[in-house]
């Protein structure tokens, strides 16, 4: 197997990687390890150094794409996420991001606009006041994080499928792609069938109050049939598209479909 060119002859690869990990910022470190697919235990287990091997990574990526297809196949557009009484709401509902709350986007409601583009009839930017006028519904559902924890919350907003209809979106397109105001430019693709699911929501309120900064002011997309990272917050644009444009976490190795 071809050695990577940056490796210096005579230098222990594993120690080198260990050392370089220490000086990397956390995010880069995660991406780097994702690229290496596996360390430690697998090396011990198989006796071969898979740090150098891209074949394991390629196979895992292929299986993850296969898993996307399986999940799309078993997705039932009529199956609703379980709903809960108000008494079941998790208090306090956790703030969760790859940054601290202090670094969360501080969006100015007057300046903010939602840009709607791509395969839609009405390409325009919507002000918050315009969006607030749309009919809203409330759901109390369980938010499930890719990390395993979950929390029940109350979200109020406009069903995305109603909005897509309003702007004349081509619902035969494959994705609705969201871009956000988070630092490093968070984004995430949502498959059209999930975008049209009755519980997928453009959320403006949490617990009947205007969505606080911690939960994605001024707008998040609540998708109770997806893991939390596919529920983008601080959304600034949505694009109806047939192209797979990738996503912040999806590009780092989280399964792209990540359906519940």
């Amino acid at each position, binding site marked *: 197997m071809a050695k990577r060119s940056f490796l210096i002859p005579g230098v222990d690869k594993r120690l080198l990687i260990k050392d370089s990990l220490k000086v990397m910022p956390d995010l880069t470190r995660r991406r780097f390890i994702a690229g290496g697919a*596996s360390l430690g235990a697998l090396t011990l287990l198989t006796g071969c150094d898979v740090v150098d091997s891209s074949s394991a990574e390629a196979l895992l990526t292929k299986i993850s794409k296969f898993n996307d297809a399986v999940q799309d196949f078993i997705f039932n557009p009529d199956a609703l996420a379980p709903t809960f009484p108000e008494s079941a709401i998790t208090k306090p509902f956790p703030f969760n991001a790859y940054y601290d709350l202090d670094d969360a986007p501080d969006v100015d409601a007057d300046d903010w606009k939602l840009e709607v583009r791509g395969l839609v009839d009405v390409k325009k930017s919507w002000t918050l006041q315009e969006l607030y006028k749309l009919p809203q519904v409330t759901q109390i559902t369980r938010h499930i994080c890719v*990390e395993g924890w979950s929390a029940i919350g109350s979200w109020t907003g406009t069903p995305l499928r109603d909005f897509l209809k309003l702007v004349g979106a081509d619902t035969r397109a494959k994705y609705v792609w969201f871009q956000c105001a988070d630092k490093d430019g968070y984004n995430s693709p949502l498959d059209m069938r999930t975008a049209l699911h009755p519980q997928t929501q453009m959320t403006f309120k949490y617990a009947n109050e205007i969505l606080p900064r911690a939960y994605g002011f001024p707008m998040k997309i609540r998708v109770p049939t997806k893991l939390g990272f596919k529920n983008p917050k601080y959304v600034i644009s949505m694009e109806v598209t047939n192209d797979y444009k990738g996503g912040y976490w999806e590009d780092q190795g989280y399964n792209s479909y990540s359906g519940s």
Partner: protein
Amino acid sequence: MSSLTVTDEQVSATKAKVIQPVWVRVMHWTNAFAMILMILSGWQIYNASPLFGFSFPREYTLGGWLGGALLWHFAAMWLLMINGLAYLVTGFASGRFAKKLLPITPSGVLHDVRAALTFKLGHDDLSVYNYVQRTLYAGIIVVGVLIVLSGLSMWKPVQLHWLVTLFGDYPTARYVHFFCMAAICAFLVVHVLLALLVPKSLRAMIIGR
């Protein structure tokens, strides 16, 4: 004794004492491989949001980080599930489960547990499982089914919400999944230890006799 007994003896003698048929051996080692991948990647996933006040040492985890571990977990699950399903079907259809694991009687279990604890439990005939073995092997099959069902509940809590209801709710399924893993690890320790203490049983699982 009747002539039937003689016939049985003749049959077992001519078949050169195959204790573990090929399908058992192939599925056993496939399961061992898949299970280890599942456990090591599962520990990494657990570390992302521990249920209890401890984490698993990073050296004993697979995947490098949560995303990598999830890729491993959701790849190895296919191997584990397909192999496990094939094992269950073959085990029931061939009559092996009924023949090897049954009956399990309370008095038999008590007797053999007592014998095991006083080191008087023999392994002279590897083709017959004692009551401790029967209980553990039947029990670990049940745990295996439970860990897959609780895992599916966590993977697809909306599409398979009826399955989640079986466990109560999503967080409960998560605890069930964890404790099944713990049970499998405990089984693994005893299982490997005993295989090393009775090497001919390990040999039977490799070459069949």
